[in-house]
Structures are given as C-alpha cells and as structure tokens.
C-alpha cells in the first residue's frame, strides 16, 4: 500500500458502525445520510470514492448483516413502494434484541450448556457456541454443570449444511441420489422440509417434486453436491414437518419386521436385544432400511440367522458371499 493512501478501516468496524447507526434511529436513515455520516463509509465518501462503488458496498453490507440475523428494515416511499431512491433504513430494536421477557433459569442454562456441546467439529458446533454466548450474555447465573455425560452427534454428511440452508430459505434443492443396487445416481428435486437423525443416520424429509409426494432420503446416499435452486416454496409447508418425518420413519419401521435366530451371549444377541421382541422361535426386530439392516446382520456372521423376510435374508447372504470371495485367496 502506498504510504499516502488513506488508512482503510477494517470492514467489520464499518458493519458494526452501521448496526449502531441504524438502531439509534426511529424514522430511519437515507442511503445518502448513511454514506456520508456512518464511519467506514464517511471517510471513503470524503476521499472521493465513487457513489456507485459506495452504494454497492452498502448493498453487500446489508446482505452480510441480514445473514447474521440483523433485521434491516427498508421504509420505502408511501406513494411508490418500489422506488427505493428515498428509502430509509433502520433496525428495530425489538426485532434485533433477545426479547426482554425471555429469561432463562439456572437449570435451563445448565441444560443448554450440555445441549450446546453435542456437536463435534462442524459448523453446527460454532453455531451452538455462538448461540450460547448470546444467552450467557444475559448474565444469568448457571447451576452446577451437568457432569457425567458427554452426548455427541456426528455430522459426517457433506450434504447437511446446504440442505439446512435450503430449508431455512424454503428453496427447492437438486441432488444426485444413489440407491443401493442402482448403477448410477439419479437427480432428485425436493422441497426440503426437515432434517432428521434416526438410528444415528441423517435423513432429509420433503416433498419430492418428480414423484409428487413426501419422501425421505438418506444423506449418506447423496453422492454429489446439493444445488440450492432459485425456486422457492411456501414456508408454511415446513410447519410440523419434523414430526411428520419422524412418524413416517416410525411407520416404516413398524411395517418392516424380521424374524431372526441369534446365538445367546454373542455380540449379535447383545446388540440386537434393545430392539428385539421375543418370538416363538428367535426374536423379531423391526428395521427402516433393508440394505442397512443387512449390513449390520452380515457383520454378525454366524451369530445370527435371518429366517424372514426373504429379501433381507438374500441381502445378508449376498454380503457374506461377497466378503468370503474377496478375502478368500491369499492377498
């Protein structure tokens, strides 16, 4: 940088100055006032930066701040709401701040601290910590921390962040989905409504636009990037979607029953016990996805025998045969 260049303020200062200015005004500030008086813009206006460049910077800043959840209100011309030349901008305090009547008890805060720690390395972990900071800044005393437990949720699926963003924005997504047994992935178009972790796997639930019905997809079978399209949908579809998704998965599990024979005392017997219902000969275990359940059953080798259904038995046999063949001869 040449020695005589004006010292440039870091953009975060400008962003925070903008929030302070927009919160301090009731009737709103015009763009002109902002560009000539708010620190960060003012210096650049004064040193002759083009109005066009400054306006673009202001537009970008507005978007950045909205991305942080700062509610920037645009008050347009009453006569012509589309004419933004005389628009005024403000941040209504009541929309910005945590509502005054929201208070957290020490017990609630202890529980939130535990809940905020469940995300291992992921963007969700940063979000949880940031959310906790805002709540802790209310200055609430906290109970003794809840010790003795370390609950963790892992998020290994690269599709998760894009799907979450698309749900927030109520936008249609497209993604390549590879069903087991199919040669190549097929592109799905979905109005995504909820993300559900069920039996330690992430699912996205939504309205499948090609099928014309609600569908649930496993994130681990999304084999390429999730594209968020410009097409949006009615956000009210999201209401109660999590419950519908969960009920849907439970209904699938309730309709898929297997009959198994397990050798007592083995790993298979122990691991299946919590999900098992005793049957006349062996145990009955329900499952959501035959492919995934077949993987688990195959891992038990001779510890478990699938009696029915035939499709599950065949998949287990297929896996065992492939494992034997691949590892059969000397390496």
């Amino acid at each position: 940088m040449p020695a005589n260049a004006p010292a440039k303020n870091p953009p975060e200062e400008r962003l925070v100055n903008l929030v302070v200015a927009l919160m301090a005004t009731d009737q709103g500030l015009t763009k002109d006032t902002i560009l000539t008086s708010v620190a960060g813009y003012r210096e650049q206006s004064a040193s002759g930066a083009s109005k066009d460049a400054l306006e673009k910077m202001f537009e970008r800043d507005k978007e950045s701040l909205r991305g942080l959840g700062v509610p920037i209100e645009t008050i347009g011309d009453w006569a012509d709401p589309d004419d933004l030349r005389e628009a005024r901008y403000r941040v209504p305090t009541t929309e910005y701040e945590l509502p005054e009547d929201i208070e957290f008890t020490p017990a609630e805060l202890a529980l939130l601290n535990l809940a905020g720690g469940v995300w291992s390395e992921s963007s969700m972990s940063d979000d949880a910590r940031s959310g906790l900071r805002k709540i802790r800044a209310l200055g609430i005393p906290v109970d003794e921390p809840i010790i003795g437990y370390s609950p963790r949720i892992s998020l290994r699926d690269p599709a998760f962040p894009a799907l979450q963003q698309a749900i927030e924005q109520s936008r249609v997504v497209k993604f390549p989905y590879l069903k087991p047994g199919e040669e190549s992935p097929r592109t799905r178009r979905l109005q995504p409504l909820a993300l559900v972790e069920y039996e330690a796997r992430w699912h996205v639930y939504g309205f499948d636009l090609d099928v014309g019905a609600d569908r649930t997809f496993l994130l681990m079978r999304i084999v390429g990037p999730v594209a968020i399209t410009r097409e949006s949908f009615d956000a009210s579809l999201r209401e109660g979607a999590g419950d519908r998704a969960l009920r849907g998965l439970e209904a699938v599990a309730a309709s898929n029953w297997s009959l198994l024979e397990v050798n007592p005392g083995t790993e298979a017997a122990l691991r299946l016990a919590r999900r098992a219902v005793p049957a006349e000969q062996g145990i009955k275990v329900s499952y959501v996805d035959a492919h995934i359940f077949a993987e688990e059953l195959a891992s038990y080798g001779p510890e478990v025998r699938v009696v029915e259904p035939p499709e599950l038995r065949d998949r287990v046999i297929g896996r065992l045969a492939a494992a034997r063949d691949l590892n059969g001869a000397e390496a």
Partner: protein
Amino acid sequence: MSGRRSLVATDRAALMLQLVPYLIGKGEVSIAEAADEFDVSPDQMRAMVEKLTVIGLPGDGGYWQMANDLFDIDWDLLDERDIVVITNSVGLERAPKLTAREAAALLAGLQLARAIPGVGDTELFAGLLAKLSRGASSAPAEVIVAPGPVDEVRDAVAAALRQGVAVTFTYKAPDAGPTTRTVDPVKVHIADGQWYLQGWCHLREAMRTFHLDRVSDLQLTDIPITHAGDPAPGWFETADDDVVARIRFPEPVARLLGDYLDRAAVETADGMTTATMRVADEVSLRRLAARRGGEVEVLEPAAARRAAAEWAEAGLAQYR
C-alpha cells in the same frame, strides 16, 4: 470446539455485536476469560476490545463524532491489568436474537440431552424449546434428533453416577468370554446412538470404556467411587491395540467406515484406498469385512484375512 480459527470480516462483526452485551453483563472481565468465552486468542480479544473504541454513532451532519458518541473502555485497567471495563456505551447493550442456525443447533442438542435419564423434566424441555424458538430472528430449519430406547442398564448407570457409587456387571466383549467387572463410573459417552460407560475398572486397575449394549446384570454397589478425578484417556483409546492391519476399499466407501479411519494412515490411487491402522486383535476386522461385504478387503495380516473369509463362510453355512 472451533479453537483459534481465522475469521472473515462478517464473523468478526458478529463477534463484536456479541461482545458489547457480554462485557456490559460482566461489568469487569479479564482478557483471558473473554478470549476463552469467544474462542479467540488473548491478542485477538485485545484487538477486538480496542477496535470497539472507534465504533459509535454517526457524527451530526457529517461532522466527526464526539468522544461520547463512541464506545469507550478503561484504558488504564486494560494496559496495566488486562481487564476490560466499558465506560461509555452507545447501544447494543442487550444480546442479539439467535440466528436460525444457532437456534437449530441448540434445539437439536436439547433433543439428544433429553434422552439422558434424570436430566431435566418434560416441562423444562418444553419451556426451553418455546424460548429458543421465540428468541430466534427467523424460523430455524427443523433438525430432529430421535433418541434410541433407554433401558434399565442406562437408568441404573445414571443412578450410580448421581449417587457416586461403583457398579458391578457382566461384560461380554466381542470375541471374548464374559467377565464380571466392578467399575467406578466416571462418564457416559453417547455417540452415533451408542452409549459407552467410561470408568475405573477394579479388575484391570485402569480407566476402561464399556459399550452399554454389552453390559448385563448391572447392580449398584454401596462402594463409594474413589477414582472419579483420575485423568481419563481419550475415551475410544485402548492400550492394547498392537496389531497393524491394512485394508483396501473403493474410495467412496471411506465415509461409510466412520471412526474406523480416524487413526488410520490412508493412501488413495486409481480410486482405491488403502488404510493402515492398529487394531486390538487379528479377528476384529472380520466383522467390518462382512458388514461391507465385497467392498472392504483385508490385506494384512494374513491371519486377519483368513478370519474374514472364515467368518463370512460360517455365516453362509447356516443357510445351506
């Protein structure tokens, strides 16, 4: 925890918006404590606090701001004692609402925490869910975590942790005979829907981790725990992983192997990945090979490869 990450301008702005209410709420706080709360280094925190003092209300009619239009801090306290006190504030006093994503992350975490026996009641959770939703700037994406069933073993472990007493139980590790253990419970880890008890094992005289599905006949004793404060090793570590194994699989299969690869050395060529790692014993990989049938090949040691083929064959024999 994200640790000392590098931040873009928007992240830094978000932190400063949170910093003011935090500092005002604290009244007086050390640089070190504030840095810890915000996951930044002490130097970064000092820079943020100093930056605060050039932030404030716009000047009147294009004039430069007056001193009391800006945030100010007690500079002497900062310079001499590394303590931050805000002496003039021009806004931002109350914490901002949660973003949709912050609310979603906490809401999902609560659903998992809810599965823990004895932690909070239904009313407490319902109240928190409502408050978080109302405290968010826009509707969070629904992120649902469906906890698995909790059985008597889990309830009993929770009781033992609360009462601070040892438990006895039968433990059956895969491919080993059952043993009877007495354990001072220290922590329950819940990961990928599986519950693990970490504690001081009286039999092995060391910290050990037990998969709760492999625990049966669990009883509370009246022996007070004595080893709760011992340093716990990484909870998945076992001291006796001394077999070096090598497996090969198509590259996309890697993400299906989960934490198997966490400590493996991995090489990929022509779409095939080879992973080298330490495992507890030679037969432990046979379950993985059968689970991923035809996708995971055990290369070394030879005995492990043989075990994998025999395991699959023994499974198949049941169907003839």
